[in-house]
Structures are given as C-alpha cells and as structure tokens.
C-alpha cells in the first residue's frame, strides 16, 4: 500500500489568451484514496484541470493543495503526482525496463537497484518477460500496463489518468476497467481519471464530476448521478433521458404538478429542492427504463397514449422510439417493448417518483 494524500482545488481557473476560459473557478476536495472521475464532452476542461494538478499547465488563478501543502507554483518534476497519458508516452528508444526504471534513476537509484524494482513491477503487471523489448514491439494493452507500471513505480500519492483506455478496443477496455479499479483498491492511492465515456465513469468511480464549460455541473456517486441528474445536460450525458417541459400549477412539499400539452397533467418530484415558482416553466426528466407500457402503465400518475415508431436492439433489453405528438418523440425501454408492432397504439405511463425536476440551466 502506498501513502495516499488528499487534494484540494480552490477556485482553480485556467485562461488561454483573453477570451478562452478552459477551467472556471473550480472547487473540489478529493479525499485520499478516492477514485474520482472527471467526465465531460471534449472541450469541457477536464484534461486541462488534470494537467494543472500534474503541474504541466500553469494555473491562472486559484490554488492546488496536496496533503495540505500549496503546490500551485511547483513544477511537475517536483510534484508528488504521476500522470498517465492517452498515448502512454513510452520512450521509444529505451527498453521497457529502462522506461519503468527512468523515474527511479532520476531519484538516484543505482542501475542494479532500479532494474530490480522495474523487474518487480513487470512481475506485478504480469508481463515479466518483456523487459528487454522496446515499446514498438508491444501491443496496445501491454503498452497500457507498462505506462501504468512506470507511473506507479515512483510511488506517487496521486495517479492522474488522461483517458488511458481511449486507444484500446471495446473488449480489452472492459477488462482493463475492472483491472484498474482493482489495482486502485490494492495500491490505495488517489486516482483522478479523465474520460468522456460515461460507461467507464459509472463502472469505476467512487465519485464522478460531470464537467461542462470548465465548471462542475454535478458531483456525486455514480448511483446519485445516474438516478438523480441535476440538469438536462447531465441527464443526457449519463445514459439517455426523456426531458419534458411543463408549466407549474401546484407545489406541495416535494411534489410539483405541471401541465403539459401532450401529457395533460404531470406529477413530478423535486428531491433536491430546486426553486420552482408557480406559473413558471420547469424541465423534468424520466429514464426510458422507468416507463411502463400497456398493462404496466395502468395506475401510474403520468402517461399518455402514443404510437410506436422505431425499434433499437440493445442486447439485454429493447428500446423503442414512440411518438407522443407530431413533433415529440419519447424513448421507452424494457423487455416487453420488442413485442409491439410498428405504428401500434401503446399506453405508456410512469410514476411521479420517476419524473425528476431539473435545475434551471441558466443558474
């Protein structure tokens, strides 16, 4: 077990030139040993934030603390962090053993010492025989592990990973997800993981930060983020959601009653307590898998009769697109939707607990 250290980001801002703000007053505290994922579309600032923690990018404003110590101005070679790049950045003219031993050599270990440690690391990643090879002779998965070994051998307190599985095929990627998660638990250090792949984020993280325009859109456990997305952006970025807009007519406790042109009356819950005003419009989201059809839809608070349009086969379950009115489509998911014929009239319905009020995006 290595020593994990907590990280504190205080108002961290990155500006490029005068107009571009890549990361905007970002605040976050990351407890030691956490697997944290920065998730977002390209250009949301997640990689810039990671590079600032590594020290590869200068902070325009704000502070970065590692273990209570301000490291904002400290160059990357004197930071207790280690970064793993998407292209692995293995040195092509060095052997695998030299690649892994490079960081140790810089820390003053003798040749026999660092070679021994590097070999131990190769045993650890279960590739004991590749020490003499060069990076060009390795497969993608092997390179990935070697890069991981090179980053871990210097015993950092934080490992930063910049889309490390991006270059692997889907099958290998899934295997590596499990492996990375297990490894993180074994070595016990803090992982900060950058990805645009929501599935990766959901399956590996202790906590996810959904980023948008340089800011945190929502921070929470995978379960929280999936079940209770805060905004329309999060709802659509994590899985798929049907988003509705209604006019508020009644508010009682956490229940919000709205009118909707196609569904008539809608009953939604507001568990996060976003401010909702009578007479204003509000956005609500319902997951496709929470929508029941025909018999199952009976007795639900919300619903309508719709027409089935298209079928999307997704393996374990079926998904179909239904049209509610001429211009409005809905996605419904469940084992029984496959039985429906195209253009068949279907009754859909879902309960108030599954229709979540979303935060106003402008705030």
């Amino acid at each position, binding site marked *: 077990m290595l020593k994990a250290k907590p990280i504190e980001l205080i108002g961290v801002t990155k500006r490029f030139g005068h107009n571009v703000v890549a990361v905007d007053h970002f605040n976050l505290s990351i407890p030691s040993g956490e697997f944290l994922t920065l998730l977002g579309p390209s250009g949301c600032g997640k990689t810039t934030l990671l590079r600032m923690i590594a020290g590869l990018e200068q902070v325009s404003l704000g502070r970065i603390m590692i273990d209570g110590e301000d490291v904002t101005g400290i160059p990357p*070679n004197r930071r207790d962090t*280690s*970064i793993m790049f998407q292209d692995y*950045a293995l040195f092509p003219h060095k052997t695998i053993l030299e690649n892994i031993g490079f960081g140790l050599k810089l820390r003053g270990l003798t040749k026999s010492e660092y070679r021994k440690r590097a070999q131990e690391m190769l045993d650890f990643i279960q590739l004991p025989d590749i020490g003499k090879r060069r990076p*060009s002779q390795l497969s993608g998965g092997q390179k990935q592990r070697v890069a991981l070994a090179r980053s871990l051998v210097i015993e950092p307190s934080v490992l930063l990973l910049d889309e490390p599985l991006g270059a692997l095929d889907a099958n290998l990627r899934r295997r590596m997800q499990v492996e990375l998660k297990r490894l993180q638990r074994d070595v016990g250090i803090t992982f900060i993981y950058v990805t645009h792949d929501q599935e990766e984020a959901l399956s590996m993280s202790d906590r996810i930060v959904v980023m948008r325009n340089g800011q945190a859109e929502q921070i929470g456990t995978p379960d929280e983020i999936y079940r209770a997305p805060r905004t329309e952006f999060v709802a659509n970025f994590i899985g798929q959601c049907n988003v509705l807009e209604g006019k508020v007519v009644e508010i009682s406790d956490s229940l919000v009653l709205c009118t909707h042109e196609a569904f008539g009356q809608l009953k939604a819950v507001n568990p996060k307590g976003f401010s909702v005003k009578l007479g204003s419009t509000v956005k609500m989201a319902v997951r496709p898998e929470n929508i029941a059809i025909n018999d199952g839809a009976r007795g639900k608070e919300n619903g309508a009769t719709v027409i089935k349009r298209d079928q999307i086969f997704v393996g374990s379950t079926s998904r179909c697109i239904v049209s509610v009115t001429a211009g409005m489509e809905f996605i419904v998911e469940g084992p029984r939707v496959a039985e429906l014929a195209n253009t068949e009239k279907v009754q859909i319905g879902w309960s108030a607990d599954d229709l979540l009020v979303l935060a106003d995006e402008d705030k």
Partner: protein
Amino acid sequence: MGHALLHLLSFTIVLALYLPIITLIVFSFTAARYPFFPVKSWSLKWYEALWKDQQFYEALTNSIIVSGLASVVATVLGFLAAYSLTRSTFRGRSALTGFMVIPLSVPLVLLALSLRVYFATFQVNFDLFTVFLGHMVYMVPLSILILRGRFQGFPWSHEEAAFDLGAGRIRTLFEIVLPWMMPAVVGSILLNFTFSFDEFIIAWFLTNFEITLPIKIWTDLLMNYDPKVNVIGTIVFLLSVSVAFLAMFSLRKGNQS
C-alpha cells in the same frame, strides 16, 4: 511498349544529368594535357601531380575546418531555434519562422556581396572566420528547416512524461528529445557539410588569402587550364555524394521509426 519508352526517357534524363560528371571523371585519368575525345592513353599522372601540390592540401584542410565547424555549429543553433519554434506558441511565431529562413531565398551572390560590405564597414579581416560566418547565414536557416520537420512529429507528451517522472529540462533534452531528433541532427550536419564544402560564391567574397577548395579550383582554371582540376572534381564529387547519401539515409531511417 509505353513502359519501355518511359524507361528509355528516364534513362536519357539521368544520363544527361550525369554525363558532365562522368566526363570529368574520365578525363581525370587521361595522360593528355588537354581533355579531348577520344582518349588516347590513360594515366594516373594528374593524381600524382595533385598529390604533390601543397596548395591543394592547404585548401582541402581549410575547407574541412570551415565546413566541419560550420555544419556542427549551425545544427546546434538550428536545433535550439527549431525547438522553440515548434514547442512554444506565441504571437508571431510563424512570422518569426519565416523571417529566420529568409536567407535561403536570397541569391547567394547578393548574400555574399552584402556580407562583404558589412564586414568591410567594420574593418573585419577577411579570412576563414568570415567564410565560416558567411556560411552560417545560409546554414542556420537550412538546419532550422530540416530539424523543424522532425520536431513537428515529436510527441510532446514524451517530454511531459519525463518532467512528470522527475526529470529537469536539461535531462529531458539529452535523454528524451535528443535521441528522438538524432536522425535529423545527423542529416542536418551532413547536408550542411556538403553545402559548405562545395560553396564558392560566399567563400570567394569573404576570404583573401586563406582559400577553400572551390576557390582553389577556380583559380587553377583561371590562371591556365590545369588538368589536376579534373582530379579534384572527381574526389570532391565522390566525397559529396557519399556524405549526401549518409544524410539521406539518416533522415529516412528517422522517418521510418
């Protein structure tokens, strides 16, 4: 049929390009005082004459000193310039790049003349050092162009990975950047060497008594036709070709890896 014609055409063009050089090599082996076809008798006597020519050795040594030094220094300067011109982003970067390689597009005779005037203004002695400086004006831009090409393919994440693992700038330069750049560095040194070794106009304008090999050839021809010139030409040609081949080989090997 079309294929054969194409082959014939290509062969003719290559022959036309190399015929003068082949002629020169052939004449270096004649016994006659003046080169004429058909060659009546063969001899190595002009090689022997050159062997005894003290001036030739001096000129050859001068040329090797100037070309060797200039090609290394120009490559070092070009390396640093190309490094910063590709690594950093700043306003006017492409303008600066263009500005730095402009000397390549100036006719050599103008370059030579302006340098002569410039040095004369400051009363600098014209010797091998001024030739060296003059060659640098052309060779530094050449190095920048050669090295910049390879720098543009350098994965900067490698440099960052080295920093991240604890290496400082100098360490990273020597252990990570330089090994990657090596083929282009070798190529740059060799190509610059062939340029400087053959260069006549700048050297002619910028030296008085310490002459380089091309000047020696020129003066030999000017005073009265000396068949040793064919021998020098043959030697210089073979030397330049082998150096140029080495340079190409080095650059190509680099691009493949």
